């Protein structure tokens, strides 16, 4: 009993010492909650308008017929795009693409209407800027769809003229219609996903960096890690006491951002809240252990921060939210498995979005837990090695 009280006291002593350290550093306090929340607000503002509307495109109408004017009108009426310019020549259209004033150019060649009526199958060309893939593919899909509708209308007229009734002619235009639905995200609310995925990735940097700073600071200090170890009594109590303030702060930030996402921003939550809380906690712990291990491997504070930066700042590409993991090379898949955020985001998708049964998520949860244990083990091992009293301080301690 007395022993337990002693150990709890060790935890409390380290915790208080850490809180004093934080209290003495306004910069550190700022990065605990206000700064990540500020970044979340910034990202939310970047994405809050959702997918863009009225992306500017240019038209080169060399035909100037009823049909070509109808095409231009219909393209302009599509919600995703707006015909911002009418260029006289293709070269002019190209210049608009190069200066970023248009994402696509539609070329309607001369005699288009006449060739359609004569059955010569003229060609309308849509050039789009695929270097800017997000708006480029949006524009291509939208304009391509409109032009397809125009062509389908002509096709229906041709069939009706040959004696078909309107209904069968309409059916014949798209003989194999594809009824497309996106599972678990019927309205394709992609923006909320992006935001929901970017935020934990940014937080992983904060969490890792704060843990790294905490340990690196002790290591560089005059008293060294030995002092914290003596305060805490055991390796485990020391680590827990040092990291607890950050665990709490970042859990609050993580859940606070989620509260905003699922509250005022209206994202749908379709899973188990308890499980969400559980993997959130393990994610924060694993990221902390990663940062602590990095700090104990690195020689000084700046290199510790740099190490966390190297590991955590490119993480977003590896998580597979934008470019899918199944198309990555072996190294990237391996590296992604070492990052807590990869598993966290997979668990989020499974739980919140897909409402998957718990056993589907067990492997990913196991991976996250495994990472926390491995990084934690490395951190404790290094702490033990660095915190061992050196000969001089051994004498001092013996007195």
């Amino acid at each position: 009993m007395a022993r337990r009280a002693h150990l709890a006291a060790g935890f409390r002593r380290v915790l208080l010492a850490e809180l004093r350290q934080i209290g003495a550093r306004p910069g550190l306090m700022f990065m605990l909650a206000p700064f990540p929340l500020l970044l979340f607000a910034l990202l939310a503002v970047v994405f809050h308008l959702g997918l863009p509307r009225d992306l500017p495109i240019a038209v080169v109408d060399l035909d100037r017929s009823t049909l070509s004017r109808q095409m231009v009108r219909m393209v302009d009426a599509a919600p995703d795009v707006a015909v911002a310019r009418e260029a006289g020549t293709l070269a002019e259209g190209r210049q608009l693409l190069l200066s970023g004033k248009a994402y696509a150019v539609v070329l309607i060649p001369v005699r288009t209407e006449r060739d359609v009526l004569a059955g010569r199958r003229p060609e309308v060309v849509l050039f789009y800027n695929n270097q800017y893939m997000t708006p480029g593919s949006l524009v291509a899909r939208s304009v391509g769809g409109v032009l397809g509708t125009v062509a389908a209308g002509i096709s229906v007229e041709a069939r009706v003229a040959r004696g078909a009734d309107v209904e069968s002619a309409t059916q014949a235009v798209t003989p194999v219609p594809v009824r497309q639905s996106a599972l678990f995200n019927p309205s394709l609310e992609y923006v909320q996903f992006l935001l929901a995925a970017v935020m934990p990735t940014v937080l992983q940097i904060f969490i890792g960096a704060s843990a790294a700073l905490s340990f690196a600071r002790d290591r560089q200090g005059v008293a060294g890690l030995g002092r914290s170890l003596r305060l805490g009594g055991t390796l485990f109590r020391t680590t827990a006491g040092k990291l607890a303030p950050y665990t709490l702060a970042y859990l609050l930030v993580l859940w606070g951002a989620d509260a905003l996402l699922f509250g005022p921003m209206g994202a749908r939550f379709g899973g188990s809240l308890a499980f969400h809380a559980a993997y959130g906690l393990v994610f924060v712990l694993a990221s902390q252990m990663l940062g602590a291990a990095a700090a104990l491997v690195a020689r000084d504070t700046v290199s510790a921060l740099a190490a966390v930066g190297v590991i955590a700042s490119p993480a977003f590409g590896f998580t597979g939210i934008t470019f899918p993991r199944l198309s990555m090379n072996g190294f990237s898949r391996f590296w992604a498995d070492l990052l807590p955020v990869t598993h966290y985001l997979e668990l989020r998708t499974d739980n919140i979005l897909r409402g998957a049964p718990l056993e589907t998520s067990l492997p990913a949860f196991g991976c996250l837990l495994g990472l926390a244990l491995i990084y934690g083990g490395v951190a404790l091992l290094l702490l033990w090695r660095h915190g061992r009293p050196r000969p001089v301080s051994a004498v001092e301690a013996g007195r």
Partner: protein
Amino acid sequence: MIAAFCREIVAALGAIWTDKGARSTMLGATLFFSAFFPQPYLNEVVRDLPVAVIDQDGSTLSRELVRRIDAADAVAVARYAPDMPSARSLFLKREVHGIVVIPPRFERDLLAGRAAPIASFSDGGYFLLNSSMSSALSNAARSLGAEVQIGRLAASGVDMAEAMAIVEPLRVTTIPLFNPAGGYASFVLPAVFVLILQQTLLMGIGNLKAGRRPGAALSTLADAIVYVGLYSLWAGVVLVWLPWVYRLPRIGDVAVMYAVVVPFLAAVTAMGIAVARLIPTKEGVIFFLVVLGMPLFFLSGVSWPAEAMPGLLHAIAFVIPSTTAVPALVRVNQMGADIRSVETTIFVQLGLCLAYSLLAVLVERAKGRPAA
């Protein structure tokens, strides 16, 4: 004067080499990040995305449709599922990323000239998987449908040319420019590389300058020239050589690129010196820059179009050099834009350089006054 200036230049170079932090960010990190960031994207496109097929028709035409879906580059038919619940469970286990349902009487309806719809369920959580699957599927459905239609018309005695004109009276050709294969690496990396230049340069300056007494004007100027010079070399490596190594499309004129790069680097250097004077500790500067990297990427308007951002935010983001420099350099390098198309950006960068230099001087004045 000139001799003193040369000495300052040598001193600035020496400082980068002897300061461990500066050496590892300005020399090591630039190269490391340029090799590391591209890794996930190097395969460029989604290939053989596994999908499950529920073929309730089991006819010649339904098998032909499945064959065409499987033949698409992006998609591979990985499983045949008997019903929706089992397909769904494969989906939840991430063994497949899409489900195609071909209903009974598909062949009969198609041959009778009635619409024969199929259903596709794609992965709504992943934008790229979703769009790869839907385009592969609509291509397969359209090509099969058109063939059956032309066959029917030809069988009823219409000649081939006329049948084609009825089925497709207006050809719509879609041509993707600048990134013809739609590669993800080609899309993201040119922007990321510019951002890596900016961030490592800022970190290096933070390492060298934060928390130290600023030198004389001449020595600061010499430092700035050395940073811009060093990073102009890096720009060659990262924006010209690396795209060649990774086989990314690059058609730009190197001279035009440098016309943007040099003002951009000057603006970044001025910003770095100002930030280092504003944030007093090295750790603070580096931390600030590490967490800011990703938001800055989204602000640059390459992955997320600037049109979709609130105007005020985009206006505020102008103070960061990368916001305008990233799209301008992408336009020059990947799209072959001439200098006329990017002259606004050049002026913006020069303006930023001036503004940050002024800020750096003012911060120093403000700090110096209470002490004096």
